[in-house]
């Protein structure tokens, strides 16, 4: 059994331990760079919870156990060393318990709302079907991870009656773009894309009137451009007014100075170009669509921004569609309507929570939040206030005040609670305590070095 002995020697060698420590450090460093370039989810899935990371963490545990076996029979003086090493193993075991049996999600409630649906990080693809267009029944539900298993390698397919729905592409970062395209509905308003250009400036923008919308405005600082279907009176800025007359489906333009004096005017046509008379700015009408609508499209991006979401491309009956995260896609056959939804998985709590009230405290004279707190009612009738650093513990779950959403005037709309159940908590705390205690004792134990010398004379060289 010479090879077994050799493996054992390698496993208990401190040299290998140093290598493992350095590898773990290196991997973690790469993870932080990934997180900075991409995002936390990317780093977690590709590095921190990758098989490689788990392999080295596992190897470290094996080493720690082997070294402890090697020191058998243990004496009192071994206790700091044992404490530190056992502590590390227990902490890691606790983390594993948390990862597999814990829950970490968010619960968003508006004031007065009762809820028990916790959103977690996993993604889920669900399909609902309806024959009458009224009542939808779930027909498929699958937890998916397209980041680790890209559908471009292995398409994910669902059978819907005689048809096949196939997810064939995935963009972890997709930029949601609204395009303005011609529509056939007579209720749709106009869209105008204009350009203002001189030697220093080149701006192009869309102006668009949706259904029931009377005005759209592009504020460019020293000047503004307005699309409206009624008279526009505001002064104080150089203004270009596009006036749209719905019955005729025609538009005209007016260029005004700060005092409202009309400098130029005329009928608006696509492709026209006019000198505005301000700073040599030339106005061009790039597009003029009398009946226009907004349409969502997605564009793959290499890196995330707050405006990107993950999105899928699906094929159904020969047509391709985009489906963004936390949104739905409607598909139709001759006799059935389908709704496909892709987004975060939801987990039901065994009880309801009601948000009675939500308050934001602000630093004086500013809109900066100083504190925020939620009054919630539990299912057993207790009213509790959850605030930053004051969580609610209820039936094994802990609720933390995480954040909130407000409207433009600063009125709170939603309170976001973070919901957590952590069966590994005790082990992590115990392990951490042992490591700390062990490390402190280790460095005060003067006999340690002597003992290490006795034990491993070869390594001390």
């Amino acid at each position: 059994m010479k090879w077994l002995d050799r493996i054992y020697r390698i496993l208990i060698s401190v040299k290998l331990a140093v290598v493992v420590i350095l590898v773990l450090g290196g991997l973690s460093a790469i993870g932080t760079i990934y997180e900075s370039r991409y995002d936390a989810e990317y780093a977690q899935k590709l590095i921190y919870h990758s098989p490689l990371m788990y392999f080295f963490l596992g190897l470290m545990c094996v080493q720690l156990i082997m070294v402890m076996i090697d020191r058998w029979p243990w004496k009192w003086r071994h206790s700091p060393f044992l404490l530190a090493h056992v502590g590390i193993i227990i902490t890691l075991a606790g983390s594993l318990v948390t990862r597999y049996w814990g829950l970490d999600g968010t619960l968003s409630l508006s004031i007065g709302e009762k809820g028990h649906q916790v959103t977690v990080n996993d993604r889920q693809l669900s399909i609902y079907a309806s024959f009458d267009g009224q009542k939808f029944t779930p027909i498929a539900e699958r937890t998916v991870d397209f980041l680790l298993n890209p559908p471009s390698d292995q398409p994910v397919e669902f059978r819907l009656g005689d048809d096949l729905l196939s997810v064939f592409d995935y963009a972890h970062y997709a930029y949601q773009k609204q395009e303005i395209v011609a529509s056939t509905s007579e209720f749709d308003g106009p869209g105008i894309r204009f350009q203002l250009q001189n030697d220093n400036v080149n701006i192009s923008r869309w102006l668009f009137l949706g259904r029931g919308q009377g005005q759209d405005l592009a504020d460019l600082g020293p000047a503004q451009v307005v699309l409206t279907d009624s008279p526009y009176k505001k002064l104080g800025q150089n203004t270009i007014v596009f006036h749209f007359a719905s019955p005729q489906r025609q538009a005209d333009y007016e260029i005004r100075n700060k005092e409202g004096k009309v400098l130029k005017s005329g009928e608006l046509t696509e492709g026209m170009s006019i000198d505005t008379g301000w700073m040599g700015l030339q106005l061009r009408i790039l597009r003029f669509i009398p009946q226009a609508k907004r349409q969502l499209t997605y564009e793959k991006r290499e890196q995330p921004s707050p405006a990107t979401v993950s999105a899928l491309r699906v094929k159904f009956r020969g047509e391709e569609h985009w489906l963004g995260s936390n949104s739905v896609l409607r598909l139709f056959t001759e006799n059935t309507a389908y709704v496909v939804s892709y987004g975060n998985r939801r987990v039901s709590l065994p009880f309801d929570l009601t948000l009675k009230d939500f308050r934001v405290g602000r630093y004086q004279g500013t809109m900066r939040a100083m504190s925020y707190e939620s009054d919630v009612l539990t299912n057993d009738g207790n009213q509790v206030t959850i605030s930053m650093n004051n969580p609610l513990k209820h039936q094994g779950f802990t609720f933390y005040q995480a954040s909130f959403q407000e409207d433009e005037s600063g009125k709170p709309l939603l309170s976001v609670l973070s919901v957590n159940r952590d069966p590994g908590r005790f082990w992590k705390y115990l392990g951490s305590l042992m490591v700390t205690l062990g490390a402190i004792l280790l460095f005060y134990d003067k006999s340690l070095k002597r003992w290490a010398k006795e034990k491993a004379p070869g390594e001390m060289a």
Partner: protein
Amino acid sequence: MRFIKTGILLGSIFLSLASAWGSSAGDLLRDLPVQQGGRVKPYDSFARESLKLLYGREKFGGREAADVVLTWLLIPEHWDDAQFVQVRHSGLREALKLDKERIYYSPKELFLNERVGLLIQEMRTKLQAQEKLNPYFQAVQTLENQLSLYHGIKFGQALLVAPDPAGDTWLAVARLPAPLGEKFATMTKAFIKVVTAEAEGSSAKADLGPLQAAVNEFRELARQQAPEKYGNDRKIKTEVHLNTFHPFMWSWIFYLVASLSLLGASVNRRRSLYIVGWGAAIVGFGLHTYGMGLRSYLLGRPPVSNMYETVVWVPWGTMILAAIMEWKSRGRIYLLVSSLVAVFCLILTDMAPSVLDKTLSPLEPVLRDNFWLTTHVLVITLSYAAFFLAFALADVQLFYFLRDEKRFAAKIEETNKAIYRAIQIGIILLGGGIILGGVWADYSWGRFWGWDPKETWALIAWFGYLAILHGRLVGWIRQFGMAVSSVLSFSLVIMAWYGVNFVLGAGLHSYGFGAGGVEYVSAFVALHILWVVYVATVRQSRLRTNQQSA
């Protein structure tokens, strides 16, 4: 006890020097309460911060900010044409087609520049789309802040001087009700009189009496608006004292005296110099503590919540650790090295105001009132202090290796023990701090460990030092290796301390994020790597020659 007495004596001499400096018109206005940035602060702080934002410094042409900023309101026609608005970003200067010879421009030329408005609009569009601003657009944002603050002060809108009994936001100068407005006008008239007299250089001191009286009358009337909102007088006075006294500047001066004396003592072994060194270090430390105490009192929390505060706090920890170690081991290297560290850090806080922002600012909600938060940050930054000490000791030790390894064998042995000890302490503190951070995260967010970059880099640094200790155990790392690895692994601490916030810029610790200084910090790290490589090469070739000659 002798050196404590020496220290106290030295200290009192300097303190009397500091307070003897003359007073001017603005002095009388300094402690008028104003509201800004979510808190009540003395006008002095408002003026300093405003002038720093626009001009980059706290004084203009030798005049105090308190004088200068009020004249923006009183004689804007003078300032509109004065070239004092700093535009530091060269790309932005180019985009605005500004005069390349300067970096200071007059408000007028900026306001009249048609491109300014367009760029600001573009920047706002980016902000609305929640895009991260690159340095160029950060510069645009700064410019917008500069211009809007100047505009706000000039038209009496940004200076909020009296509480509004009906609301949270204070009343601006332009909106003061009649009696208050009159008092304010009387005050400014008196102010102008004094300033003019000073400017005319009349040797006889201008009569400050009327101004003092006007200030007092205005203050009392403003207080009557809503006494409970008018701020705490003692805090206001303390803040003005902190602004004008510069405790950290005095502190590094004393630390500098300490390092020079201790250096002298280690060269010529004079006991008196050594005692002077200790004395100066103690006074420096006292001032250092005093300054941090003032900040803590004003903020109502320990001063460890942004980069500036930790750069002040870490050398404080280094000094304490070093003093204890020097005292206990009777070694003569710790205090010298730690004084150098302290001088370096504190000068840094004085020299880089745009990166290390010393503004006293209110906290994000998650950081308020939390025992674990404070503890974990204090412990982790203390570990940085220990590693900083180990790093600086190793830096010094490399000199011995460069000069003559054999001749300085005893010195090297001594510093080596010191490095080892400092790293041990650092490891315990950092390990404990990481765990406390986990406890805090668990307590505040419900998760113990979440691979947040800040905590991950703390762990990486911990791994790095752990590898050193284990490497030492198996004989991979000996004396020279210890010095080298101590210098190199401090880069990990710099990454965890500075890099995560300023380079990576990701994660939950975003309330500490900032920008700037990357090139200097990188240069610092690169220089030390070069230094290590240089010493290693010289040492290698020397060892080889020795072998050949043997």
